[in-house]
């Protein structure tokens, strides 16, 4: 009896001692954090510019081998061309601390990125969303709520045939556009860690 009381007392003490610092980030169903960033071309871009639209956010870093593989395979271009007719907006965000606007402009030019590439060098927007990897994908529905977050697909090593891969973003977009619930709303993202400033 005394041992149990002592344990309970310790549990209460540990519960009270120091609030845990939790990572910023969004839960599905939350309102997507608003942001205003400058893109690689120098234009100001805010999430509120796209109010009422489905928005896909892709976290990127051209120095990351996972990003390099996806750009070689044209993953983002395939998504943008498949869904732009449906009015889906694609935004790429770069929270890499050592890449300024010029570096991002060079990347956009090299890869032919025709959609906004947002420069988040101080990492504030990355932290607001809880972006952990490059790539890390988020889908925001027309009501501004996050409805998907996680990996772009189920193939971190790129070892599956393209036909065998499940692209979680395409799958979720099909469901969102059809007014259905997202069947896989959250997956573990894969990739290099976002290179936030220390």
């Amino acid at each position, binding site marked *: 009896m005394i041992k149990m009381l002592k344990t309970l007392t310790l549990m209460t003490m540990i519960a009270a001692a120091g609030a845990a610092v939790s990572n910023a980030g969004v839960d599905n169903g939350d309102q997507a954090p608003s942001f205003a960033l400058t893109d690689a071309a120098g234009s100001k871009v805010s999430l509120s510019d796209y109010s009422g639209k489905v928005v896909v956010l892709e976290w990127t870093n051209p120095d990351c081998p996972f990003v390099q593989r996806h750009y070689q395979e044209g993953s983002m271009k395939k998504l943008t061309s498949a869904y732009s007719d449906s009015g889906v907006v694609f935004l790429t965000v770069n929270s890499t601390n050592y890449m300024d606007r010029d570096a991002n402009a060079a990347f956009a030019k090299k890869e032919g990125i025709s959609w906004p590439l947002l420069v988040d060098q101080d990492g504030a927007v990355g932290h607001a969303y809880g972006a952990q990897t490059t790539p890390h994908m988020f889908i925001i529905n027309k009501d501004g709520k996050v409805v998907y977050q996680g990996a772009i697909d189920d193939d971190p*090593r790129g070892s599956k045939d393209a036909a065998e891969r499940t692209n979680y973003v395409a799958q979720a977009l099909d469901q969102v556009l059809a007014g259905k619930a997202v069947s896989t709303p959250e997956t573990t993202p894969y990739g290099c860690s976002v290179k936030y400033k220390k």
Partner: protein
Amino acid sequence: MLSAVVAVFAAGAAVADDSHVHARLVSDFDPVDGGGRFHLGVVLEPEPGWHIYWRNPGGAGLATDVTFELPEGFRAGELRWPTPVSFIQPGGIIGYGYESPVLLAAEVTAPDVTDRPVPVYVTASWLACKDICVLGEARLAAELPLDVAARRRSAAAFEAWEASLPTAAEPGRVSISTTGGPVAAGGTTALVVWLQWSGAPANVEFFPDPGPALKVDNVRTRSRGQLTRVDIDVTRIQGTAEPAQSLSAVVVTTDGQGHRTGRPLTINLD
């Protein structure tokens, strides 16, 4: 097929260097010992300042992968993972893995005692990171048994390896309970894992090993005397794998001499 394999062995491909990691094939196979069960694996040694990742890489990264190509009748068991370390990547992103040489290996069973050379391939692939990340791979080949000197080095490596693997705790050493469950589908559950120790460890670390059906974030570990509290956020990944009934983890205690011991845990989620 066999002649092609022998041709590669002539090139001595049991070691390789790629992407800041030195890889070396090790095996204690010795037909004189009866040869029925032996170990086969690879020592991966990251360059100073670089790390590779554990089976669960943490908030980012890529699990190291090791596969075996064996002759007919030889069967490799599960790959075994030595107790990892954790590191914080910029932005507070936790990583689990290895900063010093690690032996990733499996137990292999042979179909019968043989004194013919046994050709094997061990392929390791990894993500090595320091300030940037680089993918690496090595396909190592050997004819077993290795030469006497290599066999002796391997035997020593496997002895140390056994001690580096997470091992079940002695009965009564630790008792586990959880609060905050069950972990429902949809949404994220804040689970608390309570560990009651029979002695008071100097330090306690918690390494979740969620597998394909779960996502674990935000691990916070606090200890006071004989009680440790681990807060974790658990999310079920829907529409992919079979739902998980439990969460595996490795809990690591450090004793007064600074020696780390890993213990596997199973945490019920229902």
